[in-house]
């Protein structure tokens, strides 16, 4: 590679004059940023599609606090705790990633390797956690729910802790309507039970928690994000081995760590939005 810093006709006074990057960064870093913008648009479109259907069907949409209540080794409903932990794990791995970039700026190869290794471990922990969330979502609750021939889902009060939290105490034999109202009229309950089928868990045909679109979007968006996390972990592993074998210390700079870091932070950023729109809002 030529050692010269400038080409013959570089116009240094005007950043757009040619012969150099107007943004002052390398081609590879610029292209990573542009790719991230395009990927952000893809995720935005998916989340906006989710938001649109949810906005239209908000009166019968499942409550996240009723759906995501599992925590390892805990047998009570513990809403939002596990996904909060997942968010912490991913933010932590973003911190270790940026510390790897920082070590690269100091040309400290050993530290870069250590921080990259920790980032990879964090990535795997997140992937495992997401798989566990899917497992619980697909398995469903022990009692399941009742699905009418026309598709409405009637749930059991023990699977609706959010009502309990609001001070609404439904008897065990009652049902929860799609609009989250308690049905205590025994005649109506009998009518429902006469025609409804019991269903368990959530998949692409049935969703015991409520509207099937909720399950469809959950699988698609968290799956698409999880795929990004997985590809990010794969890339991180490749770069990690490059660091170990001295590719970047020979090259003289660690910009590749920075570019990889941009992708990893993007993955974290998308998760922050997915977490907000699926679990919080």
């Amino acid at each position, binding site marked *: 590679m030529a050692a010269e*810093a400038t080409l013959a006709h570089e116009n240094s006074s005007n950043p757009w004059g040619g012969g150099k990057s107007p943004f002052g960064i390398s081609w590879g870093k610029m292209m990573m940023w542009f790719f991230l913008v395009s990927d952000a648009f893809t995720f935005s479109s998916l989340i906006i599609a989710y938001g649109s259907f949810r906005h239209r069907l908000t009166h019968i949409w499942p409550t996240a606090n009723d759906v995501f209540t599992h925590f390892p080794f805990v047998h009570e409903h513990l809403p939002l705790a596990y996904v909060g932990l997942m968010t912490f794990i991913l933010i932590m791995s973003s911190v270790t990633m940026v510390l790897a970039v920082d070590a690269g700026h100091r040309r400290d190869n050993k530290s870069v390797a250590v921080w990259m290794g920790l980032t990879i471990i964090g990535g795997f922990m997140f992937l495992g956690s997401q798989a566990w969330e899917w497992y619980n979502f697909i398995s469903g609750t022990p009692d399941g729910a009742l699905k009418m021939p026309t598709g409405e889902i009637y749930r059991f009060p023990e699977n609706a802790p959010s009502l309990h939290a609001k001070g609404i105490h439904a008897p065990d034999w009652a049902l929860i309507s799609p609009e989250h109202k308690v049905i205590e009229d025994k005649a109506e309950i009998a009518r429902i039970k006469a025609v409804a089928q019991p269903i368990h868990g959530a998949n692409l045909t049935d969703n015991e928690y409520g509207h099937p679109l909720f399950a469809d979007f959950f699988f698609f968006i968290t799956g698409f994000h999880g795929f990004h996390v997985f590809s990010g972990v794969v890339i991180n592993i490749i770069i990690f081995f490059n660091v170990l074998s001295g590719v970047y210390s020979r090259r003289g700079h660690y910009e590749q760590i920075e570019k990889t870091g941009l992708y990893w932070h993007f993955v974290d950023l998308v998760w922050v939005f997915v977490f*907000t729109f699926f679990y919080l809002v």
Partner: protein
Amino acid sequence: MADHKHETPHGYYTGDMHNQFVPEHYDPKNRGVIWRTFWILLIITIGEVAIAFTSLSKELLEVIFITLTVVKAYFIVAFFMHLKHEKMSLVYSILLPFILIVYLIAMCLTEANYLNLWDTMFK
């Protein structure tokens, strides 16, 4: 070669077609900034999960969550992805297209209200 721990590099050549010199000014305070950003993100997340269990109105909760999420996004993009220290032309190239996303949100939410779904729309 000199001991890398005591000598911070002044920059490198990008190795691409322009092979231009990218100056690096290593700031030892950078690690402090990184950890400070971590604590900010952690506290905001814990705050969000805590607020989720209060009995504020749904609309107010929504506004709070979305605002806090945008704040977290700012910290991740500005400090972890380093965008705060890049040239403004790059910052604008990346951020301005998201104005279109705001428009898309408004249009899609409006359109969704007109969808002819049965309100139990399961079939």
